[in-house]
């Protein structure tokens, strides 16, 4: 049971028992996992490691963010950052990733146009995903141009929406049928929480190390990845993710973006679901939803957004600004 803001937003915690109330009489062991925006990925990882004890395991990610005034929601989401080092200084999440973007731009020459290309791609993908937040809304360059500044250089369409949502996966130690998809690698790493504690803000070491561990477990290298669902809570985060996952070397992700290599028909599609950017970011559900998308793609059931014959799909789920990162490698069923 993965969820982040049930307490602050809804005054409802103890969500494993709330979920148990939806399955009266079953009395299965259950608990809630919280690691900010990485709650879902961390819950899946925990479940993978617990299969020796409990088998099968249902992982549910859920979040409701609507219905709260914006200023209060921004404060609550800020709980994913450090209350002393970040929140007290007004560093909300758009501002945090804005500073990341500023650093990436200064070091590698990344441009706002690159961020726009990511937004356009993910919004185009979302129109092909019936479960995406922006499925029915076609976002054009004109929409992006009209977007208000949120925290420079990030404008409205650089930011993921505030979404409600849920996702669920069932994990078992052995295939439950032909449609089962193997999780070949699963890793989580934690790191310091605030940007102020990092020597370098253009990469998240937790993501790099989680990726290395997950690839090692799966017996692959980054070049084997056919598709990725990454944590693009802001457009700049997709660039950081691609570089941390080894899909591109540092500073080079923009080249793949400019050439269309990360589009659905490209060499390494990134976020065919629309990602968090346009698919939506129902926080606790996100990491679980990424697994859902990976499985759907590997089953060849992704419809209009189907990537051609992927063998390895990687998911990348980040809490805060790299404080937690969960990476999973899923493989086509042999």
């Amino acid at each position: 049971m993965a969820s982040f803001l049930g307490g602050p937003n809804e005054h409802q915690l103890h969500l494993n028992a709330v979920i148990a109330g939806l399955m009266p009489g079953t009395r299965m062991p259950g608990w809630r996992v919280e690691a900010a925006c990485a709650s879902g990925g961390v819950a899946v990882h925990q479940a993978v490691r617990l299969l020796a004890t409990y088998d099968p395991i249902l992982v549910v990610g859920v979040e409701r963010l609507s219905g709260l005034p914006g200023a209060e929601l921004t404060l609550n989401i800020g709980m994913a950052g450090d209350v002393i080092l970040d929140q007290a200084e007004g560093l909300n999440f758009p501002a945090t990733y804005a500073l990341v973007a500023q650093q990436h731009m200064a070091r590698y020459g990344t441009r706002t146009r690159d961020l726009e290309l990511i937004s356009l791609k993910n919004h185009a993908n979302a129109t092909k995903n019936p479960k995406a937040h922006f499925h029915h809304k076609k976002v054009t360059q004109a929409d992006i141009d009209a977007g208000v500044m949120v925290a420079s250089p990030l404008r409205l369409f650089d930011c993921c929406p505030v979404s409600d949502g849920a996702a669920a996966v069932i994990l078992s130690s052995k295939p439950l049928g032909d449609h089962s998809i193997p999780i070949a690698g699963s890793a989580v790493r934690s790191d310091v929480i605030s940007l102020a504690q990092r020597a370098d803000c253009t990469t998240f070491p937790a993501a790099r190390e989680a990726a290395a561990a997950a690839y090692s477990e799966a017996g692959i290298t980054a070049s084997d990845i056919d598709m990725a669902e990454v944590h693009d809570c802001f457009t700049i985060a997709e660039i950081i993710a691609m570089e941390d996952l080894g899909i591109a070397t540092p500073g080079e992700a923009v080249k793949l973006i400019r050439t269309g290599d990360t589009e659905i028909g490209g060499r390494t599609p990134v976020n065919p679901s629309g990602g968090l950017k346009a698919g939506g970011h129902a926080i606790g559900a996100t990491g679980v939803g990424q697994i859902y998308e990976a499985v759907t793609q590997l089953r060849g059931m992704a419809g209009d957004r189907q990537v051609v014959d992927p063998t390895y799909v990687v998911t990348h789920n980040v809490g805060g600004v790299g404080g937690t990162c969960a990476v999973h490698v899923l493989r086509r069923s042999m």
Partner: protein
Amino acid sequence: MSSGGSCSTCGLTYAYDLAVCTSCGSMLEPLRVSRRVALAVTEVATPSIGHGDVPYWCVLAEAEDGHRCVAKSSRAVSVGDTLTEDAAAPAGCIQAVGIVGSGVMARGLVELMLSRGHRVVWVGRSLERLDASREKVVERLAKAMDENQTGEALGRLVMSGSTTALAECDIVIEAIVEELEPKQDIIRRIEEVVGEECIIATNTSSLPLDAMSLGMRRPQRFGGLHFFNPPMRMRLVEVVRGPQTDDAVESMLVQFAESLGKTSIPVAAGPGFVVNCVLMPLLNEAVRALEDGIAPAEAIDEAVMLGLNHPMGPLALADLIGLDVVTNIMDDLYGRLGDEAYAPRPLLKQLVQEGKLGRKTGEGLFTHTRPPVSG
């Protein structure tokens, strides 16, 4: 804001105020705040609770020693700028706090500052009295902290009978008797020993700041921080701007108060600011009701609590504040405003004359069964 520490044994640095290194157990040295340069800046246009005034700027800054911080600025900052005090998280610059006085408020302030991680220099006329008050502080801290934490907090406390101990303080708050001349005198003596950048604040609840700052060399670094009793629990701080207080100093006082978890309300240095200006006639009228035999003390308090939705009755509140303090404030406001509503009622004066000052002496408008509060 946390100021951080570094370990000279294994070289690790921490953004938090830890006592010892988590790796080797050595005592940590506090990080010295040095010149900070802006590495990246974002202009934030979305408001959130506590940060409603937009735009503001968030700066990722690096000090000469490589230590980084995030700082909020109310004005535009460019990459490469050296952060001024305003931008470099002023509250973070206030680490050593001087508290002058040995009464109930001073003790409460010492407890608050220690619990918020500050180094505290506590100055009072009599070391004996401070020692007795220290026991109370220890008792209070121990309620919220374990033995190690209490020990660590007390390790940050220095007590002295002389103002010279205040020399290294970033801010000094005087909380001595609520009378003008002693306050003028102590403020001058504080100013003689502290550094140029030190802020001097008065905890006065109503006295005129212009009179208090007469003869100061740096009146622009003087202002009011009116905490309420008990400071640990009461959420309001009236931040009082004196006639010569700098804008930057006022905003540092606001941020300092907020860093202590308080809500700050900036007020002009008019008589009684907001709270006492409103409160004193209420207390006085409650005493008049008692004098006139309208109802017994308990009943007056209960009527106000239930009828006005106050958490405490006015007579009990007067006893908590101290009847001597209440009459001093009233005398001062009456003198400055000439309004009879502020002239202390005869019963108040009589009780003060009899030494019945309220909770701290065990008797005032009520008889208090709890042992008198020392100090």
